[in-house]
């Protein structure tokens, strides 16, 4: 059973935000509009967070792209009263939109601010509407439920089907989330963390590797490679 994980090389990331855009197109996250976004209602499964230290001109900026960490000990799934969010056997933390009661306990429990609530029914400008991903697995979520990055799990399902159809064994490299595929700086790596031969495994064990808020014991499966 693979244990999916991601590595993001901060030296290579130049904060172009194409991951954020790719994620939006792949996963049909609604457009909040400037007004609602100003109120903190934007839904961005992937977000590039700017950590600025010091003041101009002596300033160190670290841009950290932040998908869901798909924690091995996820505080979010623990508190869900109805198992609407859970970690599947392959370590991906998913949300069941048909079951979520919208209590937002998971959103306050996630230390990474990764989970988003649908404050309104989803909306898109007319032009964008025609380009929604037709995959039923990412059909727009109704108002009142929580959603978040799923490592594009629909792509995993599709990759498996494809391998089946072609009559060959599924390989970890068949599956790649949209943000990783798009990343302009080739800063993102994805694969099976448990496979010692995989690139992600090796990078995750590099001396440059670190994880966000490691001290909380959530065991994130998204690793970063220190910049500099």
């Amino acid at each position, binding site marked *: 059973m693979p244990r999916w994980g991601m590595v993001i090389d901060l030296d290579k990331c130049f904060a172009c935000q194409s991951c954020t855009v790719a994620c939006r197109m792949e996963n049909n996250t609604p457009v909040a509009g400037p007004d609602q976004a100003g109120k903190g*209602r934007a839904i961005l499964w992937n977000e590039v967070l700017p950590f600025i230290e010091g003041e101009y001109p002596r300033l160190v900026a670290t841009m950290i792209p932040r998908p869901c960490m798909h924690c091995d000990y996820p505080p979010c799934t623990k508190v869900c009263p109805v198992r609407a969010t859970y970690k599947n056997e392959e370590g991906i933390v998913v949300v069941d939109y048909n079951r979520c009661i919208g209590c937002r306990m998971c959103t306050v429990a996630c*230390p990474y601010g990764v989970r988003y609530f649908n404050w309104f029914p989803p909306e898109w400008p007319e032009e964008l509407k025609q380009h929604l991903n037709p995959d039923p697995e990412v059909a727009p979520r109704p108002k*009142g439920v929580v959603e978040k990055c799923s490592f594009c799990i629909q792509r995993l399902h599709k990759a498996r089907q494809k391998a089946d159809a072609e009559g060959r064994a599924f390989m970890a490299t068949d599956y790649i989330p949209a943000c990783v595929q798009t990343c302009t700086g080739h800063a993102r790596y994805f694969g099976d963390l448990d496979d010692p031969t995989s690139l992600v495994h090796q990078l995750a064990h590099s001396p440059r590797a670190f994880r966000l808020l490691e001290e909380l014991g959530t065991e994130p499966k998204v690793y970063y490679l220190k910049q500099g």
Partner: protein
Amino acid sequence: MHPENKNETVILNPLRKVGLADKLLWATLLGLLLLGIGVWIRQYVLGLGITGLNRPVYWGVYLTNFVFFIGLAHSGTFISAILRLAGQGWRKPLTRAAEAITLFSLPFGVASILVDMGRPDRILNLIWFGRYESPILWDVTAVGLYLLSSIVFFYFSLIPDIALCRDRLTQAPGWQRRMYTILALGWRGTPQQYHRLERVLDGMAIFMTMLVVTVHTVVSWLFGMTLQPGWHTALIGPFFLLGAILSGTAAVVIVLAILRKVYRFQHVLPVSLFNSLRKLLITFLLGWLYFMIAEHLTIGYGNMKEEMVVLQDKFSGNYALIFWSMAVLVFGVPLLIFLIKGKDSIGWMVLACVLINIGMWMERYIVIVPTQISPRLLSVSGQGIYLPTMTEALITVACFAGFTLLYAVFTRYFPIVPVWETAESLPVGHEAEPALQTGSATAD
């Protein structure tokens, strides 16, 4: 057979006539309640976006109301169960008034959660798919049990008085008399019946006491079980519990004073009762200060980065105004009033208790919001903001109106002071417990 109580007429007086003033009051409260329900329906249709909630402040006024109403509910159980176990006879005249607070505030605690839910239509998922690893299920269970057992406890102790109404209020409209007959369950008031009733109530009191401690602790664990700075502390449970008992007891004072004035219960609810409550309240206030200092000193002294963000926000940041006015309202002014003016003065006591309750609402708010406003990673893009909207305000008003409405109506149809518990003597053969005698002495 009915107990002899020289105050019987006075106590039953409010039940004899529903005046125009009552109807006006009820209509106003009902209007506010319906308005709130309307606003909730609108919120359900449009989405929770019409509140001030956002990311990162996912929980706001509704959760504050939830904690507050569950806190108010602690009054009744505290007075009737805990003081019953402690053999405090003076509590007797005010037991029912206090229990009614419990009974009528719990539904609005529950309602606040429903209002807060994104998908209240899926509430049954809690039953089909409920999992006990989640603190929400602990809450559902504890609050549910608490509501059920409060109803039973309340109803049992009401039965002898319903039977009294059935036999005394012969002028009442037909439906009202029928209601009494049905609800009295054929109570005859034999010594054995009283004996059995007392035993059941004593037994339930033990259960209720355990439940009351559990309920508010579990409510606090909604917050305490997360890893968030400011919430993740073992003290949050006891602190919430003490706060609940404080605001609940203060609410009892307010309610008693109103009943005393409006229904002319001066003899039934003597000033001595208020003085006893005053002593309790002073104790709770000091306890509250103790928790407050223990909590904040530990965090401040430890000086851990993440915790300090929240602490500083409360002490000197955006929430300083609310925080310090809360401290003055809950603790400072009320303690001064109790110590200097409170004795024998109901007016001052009520003022202090109103301040305590306003302050306690703010305290709940100040626990819930500042922690969320600067979450660990997101604060890089600036602090969050949370400004409740009209929707939240109207629904809050509706909850308070609903609570008052239930209370006001109840007092017009059922004796709000227990006649049998304050009686000089119960039907012969009943072994009066010593506390009972003290009770009637206080009622003189």
